[in-house]
């Protein structure tokens, strides 16, 4: 029988350590599908840092480098500068990108580094058991904001909109936010990843796709209910779509900084 929808080649067909219902698995599949469609399996390198994404190297069947927490954009810079014709995927979570790694992502973005960042935003620290993340919503429970995130009385700050934050930087070209909550958004997110990867291979940078994802375990919800929570709470705050797109049109040579 003909396969209509099947397992992508550059993703290993093994069971993952991710929790039931975790968004990482869908995001991994989208990346692998785009890598396969672009024929880049032996020319791709993924940087997978601390966080649940530490496991990613077990599942992607291409080269990987595991940097220190938060330093992923720095390591990706080193890799892409040395191997400019390879596809470099900087895969990060909330803590890695928006807490410990804010200097690295801002400066990589500002330098217009030509790798693509895949930023998995699940508004919580997953691997370490559910602490507050820079992207945790106001009022949201986390183990280190047990009364709900309170920016006013507890000095816990506000959730950071990473795409919007980076959009003012001169080196950024494509900043998009997708979500893996339903099939329509999943397919739109794949298009964003494809746009970003194609831009990278044409020599344009900096590109980033932020992807809203559910974390059933640490949100303390069933997978089904976590999708509801994502749709009702995260999407209204983190708008989906292309936040910034100043990419050179595909039929023109890649231009200088705008």
């Amino acid at each position, binding site marked *: 029988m003909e*396969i209509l929808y099947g397992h992508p080649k550059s993703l290993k*067909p093994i069971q993952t350590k991710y929790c039931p219902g975790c968004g990482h698995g869908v995001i991994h599949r989208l990346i692998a599908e785009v890598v396969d469609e672009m024929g880049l399996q032996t020319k791709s390198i993924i940087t997978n840092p601390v966080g649940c994404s530490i496991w990613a190297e077990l599942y992607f069947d291409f080269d990987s480098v595991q940097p220190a927490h938060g330093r992923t954009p720095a390591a990706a810079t080193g890799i892409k500068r040395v191997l400019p014709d390879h596809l470099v995927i900087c895969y990060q979570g909330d803590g890695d990108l928006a807490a410990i790694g804010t200097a690295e992502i801002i400066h990589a973005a500002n330098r217009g580094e030509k790798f693509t960042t895949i930023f998995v935003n699940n508004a919580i620290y997953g691997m370490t058991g559910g602490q507050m993340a820079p992207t945790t919503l106001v009022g949201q429970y986390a183990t280190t904001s047990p009364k709900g995130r309170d920016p006013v009385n507890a000095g816990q700050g506000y959730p950071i909109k990473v795409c919007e934050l980076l959009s003012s930087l001169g080196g950024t070209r494509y900043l998009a936010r997708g979500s893996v909550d339903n099939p329509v958004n999943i397919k739109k997110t794949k298009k964003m990843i494809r746009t970003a990867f194609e831009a990278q291979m044409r020599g344009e940078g900096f590109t980033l796709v932020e992807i809203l994802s559910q974390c059933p375990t640490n949100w303390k919800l069933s997978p089904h209910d976590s*999708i509801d929570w994502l749709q009702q709470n995260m999407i209204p705050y983190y708008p989906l779509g292309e936040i910034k797109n100043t990419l050179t049109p595909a039929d023109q040579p890649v231009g200088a900084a705008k």
Partner: protein
Amino acid sequence: MANKGKPVIDRERCKGCLLCVRACPTKVLDADSTPNSWGYYPSTPVAPEKCIACGNCFQVCPDVAITVYKL
């Protein structure tokens, strides 16, 4: 609607998150009453004749445990 597709779920890869059950527009899938070796109750086609090959189950599955064949 004509039966256009056949979803096949890898019982041992499935973690019973049941997001595919939520995503299926024609209610083809539901949790199996027999658990797999991990203790999860995997999704299984309970009404396979209703499959319209939309691919929604495949899209949402975090474990890529579903293959959809064309009939």
